[in-house]
């Protein structure tokens, strides 16, 4: 036993591996785990059965367990925990792990493994889990010695939540779970080498302040790193915006970091971002990227990306700096720590917001804002998907609302039209773009916030990818509301086929859809359907007021496309603003064909 571990009577008894794992989880503050049992993890499930500290949520598919843990993590800031069995349990979790890696979500995933003496023998339900998950986790472990088990679990939590967060897998052979071994407490565990830098270099902050103070066309570009850094980072962003009066845009993952109602907020940027945000990026002279990674959805064509700006990037991950876009000043540090330092330096230098200097820049931005790029042709004949989300947003005011999405057009419309006023309210699969993310993620959010209104904004195609989780909602009486924008198409696929592939709608029609009302009924939920514009509000109200899980099937315009749009290979200032703009006219259209 590690020196310094407090021993009480019960601890003096040697624990078996499964008990060590659970004790370590409890000591790490874990309250909930999402999992699915199987042969290799039976000892863990047996130990779970005999305790009351940790609640286990039985999902219906291991992928959903990881997404649920992601939703839990992103809405609380805690580490999400997953427990699955060996072989197919682990391989089913891979999509979720990759999703968590790309969106930097802290998750610890315990996977069962065949006993150590069988590893490599192609045993029943054996898979090389550490081999398979190596490229889709931040780190992974195979525990082959029970004396290292407790330490490994603590270390896994440290790695998952420190620096740039991410998923960590601990592969647990069955013999390790039944062997007895010592326990060591979290305090006794310090990682040998892994110490991510969180405090920014003071000279970097000084140089950033210098650049920002001289900016005539500044832009703040914030991303998911702000959310990951914690609510304090969002507060500091608001303070920075207040102090400087600079315009601010946010990535898909960053929505909520600055209240959408703030007049300095330009909306989301990128492929389906606003006209004003993308143009402000393109025309800026000083750009401050905060916890954002210059993703290809954000930058458009790289050699035309913000060509005249001095770029400053704050990121906790040094490999995010200068990866896609060369920046003039890279600052490695935690967002909250860096913003705090930056604000302090600006104040110490006596910086005052210079409205006069910024006036021409704001005039330019306001001119673009006046273009009202999110406008759509509203009608009383058919429900426009944008209108449905606007109404959903309006009618959920006053509720403690969390929103998750699946992936596709509905996701972009949700990002554009659902206005987030604070962080941790918006769960979406940004990096990996995982259809089927939203329902299990909403489930995880609802577990963490039992009294909140949790809505999964979905498409009729995406929702079917993890629809089995309706059964989990029923089992735990989780009142998640599934709001399906049903356009009978894989909408984003159809949109690209229309714009880029001559309207040949290859395999994108949602043939043979289930009756979602009956489907809800079969899962013990309430099903609602609406197709008349005049009945939309009432249906949304009924959805909110109905206790328990609800599926709302909203029949929306099947031909609607998501605009504005920067076609692949085009630059920020070459947006398609609506159906009247045709693709192929932008620069780089040909190279864009091969891009996703």
């Amino acid at each position, binding site marked *: 036993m590690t020196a310094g571990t407090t021993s009480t009577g019960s601890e003096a008894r040697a624990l078996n591996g499964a008990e060590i794992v659970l004790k370590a989880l409890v000591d790490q503050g874990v309250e909930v785990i999402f999992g699915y049992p199987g042969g290799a993890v039976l000892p863990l499930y047996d130990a779970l059965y005999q305790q009351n500290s940790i609640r286990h949520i039985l999902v219906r598919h291991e992928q959903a367990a990881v997404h649920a843990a992601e939703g839990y993590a992103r809405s609380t800031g805690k580490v999400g925990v997953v427990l699955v069995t060996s072989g197919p349990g682990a391989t089913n979790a891979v999509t979720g792990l990759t999703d968590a890696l790309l969106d930097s979500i802290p998750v610890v995933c315990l996977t069962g493994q065949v006993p150590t003496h069988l590893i490599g023998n192609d045993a029943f339900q054996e898979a090389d889990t550490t081999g398979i998950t*190596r490229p889709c986790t*931040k780190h*992974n472990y195979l525990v082959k010695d029970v004396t290292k088990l407790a330490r490994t679990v603590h270390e896994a939590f440290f790695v998952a939540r420190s620096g740039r967060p991410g998923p960590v897998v601990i592969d647990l052979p069955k013999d390790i779970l039944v062997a007895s071994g010592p326990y060591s407490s979290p305090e006794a565990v310090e990682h040998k*080498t892994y110490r991510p830098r969180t405090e920014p270099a003071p000279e970097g902050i000084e140089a950033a302040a210098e650049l920002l103070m001289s900016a005539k066309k500044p832009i703040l570009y914030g991303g998911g790193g702000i959310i990951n850094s914690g609510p304090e980072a969002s507060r500091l962003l608001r303070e920075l915006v207040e102090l400087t009066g600079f315009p601010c845009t946010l990535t898909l993952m960053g929505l909520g970091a600055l209240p959408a109602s703030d007049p300095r907020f330009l909306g989301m940027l990128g492929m389906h971002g606003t006209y004003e945000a993308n143009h402000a990026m393109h025309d800026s002279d000083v750009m401050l990227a905060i916890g954002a990674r210059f993703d290809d959805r954000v930058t458009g064509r790289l050699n035309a990306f913000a060509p005249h700006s001095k770029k400053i990037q704050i990121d906790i991950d040094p490999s995010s700096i200068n990866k896609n876009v060369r920046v003039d000043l890279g600052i490695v540090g935690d967002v909250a720590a860096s913003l705090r330092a930056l604000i302090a330096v600006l104040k110490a230098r006596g910086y005052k917001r210079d409205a006069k200097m910024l006036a021409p820049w704001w005039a330019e931005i306001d001119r673009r804002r006046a273009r009202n790029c999110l406008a759509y042709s509203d009608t009383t004949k058919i429900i426009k998907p944008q209108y449905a989300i606007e109404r959903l947003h309006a009618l959920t005011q006053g509720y403690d609302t969390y929103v998750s999405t699946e992936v596709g057009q509905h996701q972009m419309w949700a990002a554009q039209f659902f206005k987030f006023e604070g962080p941790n309210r918006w769960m979406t699969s940004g990096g990996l773009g995982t259809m089927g993310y939203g329902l299990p993620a909403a489930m995880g959010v609802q577990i963490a916030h039992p009294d909140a209104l949790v809505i999964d904004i979905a498409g009729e195609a995406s929702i079917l990818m993890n629809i089995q989780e309706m059964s989990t909602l029923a089992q735990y009486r989780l009142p998640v509301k599934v709001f399906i924008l049903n356009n009978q198409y894989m909408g984003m696929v159809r949109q690209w086929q229309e714009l880029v592939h001559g309207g040949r709608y290859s395999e994108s029609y949602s043939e043979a859809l289930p009756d979602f009302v009956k489907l809800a009924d079969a899962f013990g939920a309430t099903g609602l359907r609406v197709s008349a514009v005049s009945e939309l509000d009432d249906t949304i109200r009924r959805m909110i007021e109905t206790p328990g899980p609800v599926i709302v099937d909203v029949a929306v315009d099947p031909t609607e496309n998501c605009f504005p749009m920067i076609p692949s290979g085009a630059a920020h200032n070459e947006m398609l603003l609506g159906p009247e703009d045709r693709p192929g006219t932008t620069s780089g259209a040909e*190279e864009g064909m091969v891009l996703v």
Partner: protein
Amino acid sequence: MAPITAAIERHTIAVVVDNEPGVLARVIGLFSGRGYNIESLTVAEVERSTSLSRITLVTSGTPMVIEQIKAQLSRLVPVHTVKDLTEDGPHVERELALIKVAGTGERRIEALRLAEIFRARVVDSTISSFVFEVTGSSEKLDAFIELVAPIGLVELARTGIAAMSRGTGQL
């Protein structure tokens, strides 16, 4: 896509890692997964007491890619130190090759002559073959191999580069 106009550079990087299962797979997986080049890679335990291994790898890419490779290596959890020997000043690079040359008569004598010029040692010998051991820069090895090839080169094994900075500095 931004056209890559920057010059391709060749860098020798030393990486100190925990000697634990899978660590080499992490490094190699990083290179294959992200499309970086590996021209040479050697690895062996260098400190038994602390269980540390040293990986020496030679890679090539634009300066931005080289910088990215180092950042990506550094963020692997079992990696202790990443040092770019090419960037950090003068260093020595050595490689070892075992070269089997078969032949009799004049060819045998010629092989021995060349070996002497290159300070290659004979580590195995039969009446119709030699195994030479030669160390030096990769260029020297290339030159020797090129010369013995027509004489009767039948087999070749190279270690890849081991490298170290000159002077008193420590990794």
